[in-house]
């Protein structure tokens, strides 16, 4: 019988520690499908963050470096600059990338580091038990915003793709989601484009994935997907915020 659905070769054959309904599993799979299709897993170095996805070093089938909190883009810069022919990507959550690692994110972008950043936005710090993240929505209840995020005192959620799109070194800034099959397909295309950009030495590509955290949101897996669609996407509109390659094509 023909196998129509299987584990990507680039994904290690182990059980993950992720909660039921967590989006990491889907995004891990998409990344690995892309690495399979491009046939580059043997030449890839992943840089994993601090947070739930730290243990991705057990799941990605490539060589992996675990970075200090927020520093993945700097670690990736070091790895890529001395190995320009390798494929280097970071996989980071919102606390890691958009709070403690903001400087590293912005400056790897403005330098145009030839790396891929997979940015998981689930509006919370998952591993530490669901505290307010820079991406937590106004009014959203978390462990550290027990009465809902008050923007007068806790500030506003940060829109990373919009910010990164202003930087000259960024080749691609695209926001996708994993709440529906069409969105998952779109997400995979964006991830593929990001890795193609790296192979073509276009500069930094960041794909922001609106994802879920059922455990810390206190929602079921299906209700979490609804939360992405109904609450997150309106604040974080999906789409391509910058695509250097497409812009250049259009200008021709």
């Amino acid at each position, binding site marked *: 019988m023909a196998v129509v659905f299987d584990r990507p070769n680039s994904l*290690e054959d182990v059980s993950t520690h992720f909660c039921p309904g967590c989006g990491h599993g889907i995004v891990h799979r998409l990344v690995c499908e892309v690495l399979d299709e491009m046939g580059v*897993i*043997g*030449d*890839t*170095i992943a*840089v994993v963050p601090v947070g739930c996805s*730290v*243990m991705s*070093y*057990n799941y*990605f*089938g*490539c*060589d*992996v*470096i*675990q*970075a*200090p909190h927020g*520093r993945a883009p*700097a*670690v*990736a*810069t*070091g*790895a*890529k*600059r*001395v*190995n320009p022919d*390798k494929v280097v990507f970071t996989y980071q959550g919102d606390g890691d990338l958009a709070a403690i690692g903001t*400087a*590293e994110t*912005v*400056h790897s972008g403005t330098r145009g580091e030839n790396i891929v950043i997979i940015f998981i936005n689930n509006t919370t710090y998952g591993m530490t038990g669901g505290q307010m993240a820079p991406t937590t929505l106004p009014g959203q209840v978390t462990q550290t915003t027990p009465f809902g995020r008050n923007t007068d005192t806790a500030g506003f959620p940060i829109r990373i793709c919009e910010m990164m799109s202003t930087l000259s070194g960024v080749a691609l800034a695209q926001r996708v989601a994993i709440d529906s099959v069409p969105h998952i397909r779109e997400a995979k295309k964006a991830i593929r484009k990001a890795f193609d950009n790296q192979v073509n030495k276009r500069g930094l590509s960041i794909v922001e994935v609106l994802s879920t955290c059922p455990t810390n949101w206190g929602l079921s897996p299906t209700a979490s997907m609804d939360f992405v669609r109904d609450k997150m996407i309106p604040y974080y509109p999906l789409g391509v915020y910058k695509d250097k390659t497409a812009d250049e094509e259009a200008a021709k």
Partner: protein
Amino acid sequence: MKGNEALAEAAIRCGCKCFFGYPITPQTELSAYMAKRMEKSGGVFLQAESEIAAINMVLGAASTGVRAMTSSSSPGVSLKAEGISYMAGSDLPAVIINVQRGGPGLGSIQPAQSDYFQATKAMGHGDFHVMVLAPCSVQEMVDAVTLAFDKADQYRMPVMILADGLLGQMMEPVTFPEAKTELPDKSDWAACGHKNGRKHHIINSLFLDAPLLEAKVKERYERYKQIEENETDAELYMCDGAEIVVAAYGATARVAKSAVTKARAEGIKAGLFRPKTLWPFPVKEINQACKDAKCILDVEMSMGQMIYDVKLATECRIPVEFYGRTGGVIPTPAEVYDEIKKLTGGAQ
């Protein structure tokens, strides 16, 4: 050649493939030299957005198996502490240079030795050590860089060269070694792409299982034990029959040496103990230097930090006195000589 530039040239000759730094006085000439030379020698120079980013770029490059270096001065080294701890926890070799200046806080830009505690006792969170080398001339800085890269690779750990603003800015004649052509093979652990030929390598400092982390740390301490046994180094100057031994390292040791020479010329039985490795501290060597001593005079450009190692190493058998200047003030040979005279009561 200037001390800071000599450090840079020595690193390139050691096969250092990349330098990541952030501007800070008094080590700026090192970065400037790297910016000029690194690319021409086929390496990477990158000015990072912060000290934190710079050390993490070193972490990333070192993870792939290449020789990597960063340099800074005291306030900047504090910022690198996180990255150094991660590198120690991931068993990554690299060379870190601290051209010390006065502290705490922004302090001054003048020479100091007030980061001794940080370098030898607490270079970051967690149970770990970095090897710490203390050169006292431009030539020794060159030699220290060579040793630092070799030992970092041999023991898979960060090695720090603890210099100071005086050594960094000083100009002296220097001889460089030939450029290295053969470097150690790190393919058994480096994360540089497995080419589908082996299981993936993971560079990691996270071990959630407590007994496993304990075992990892203990394994590292076994290595530290070997280092303590095999890698200590010190200069003993006029220590035979010395009744007072001055203990000093780095630029301060040069000042102390002048004072000791003068004291000897005047009939005072003085000697100098100069550790060239601060971690591991040369315990055997200091006891050798002090076998006839009735008093040790510890001299530092700090309020007294190495003095604790001096007392511990000699098990407080001999009184240890202290003379120090700090905040960027450099002690003079006359000041140290006066202290020696005061403690010995002059020539017998």
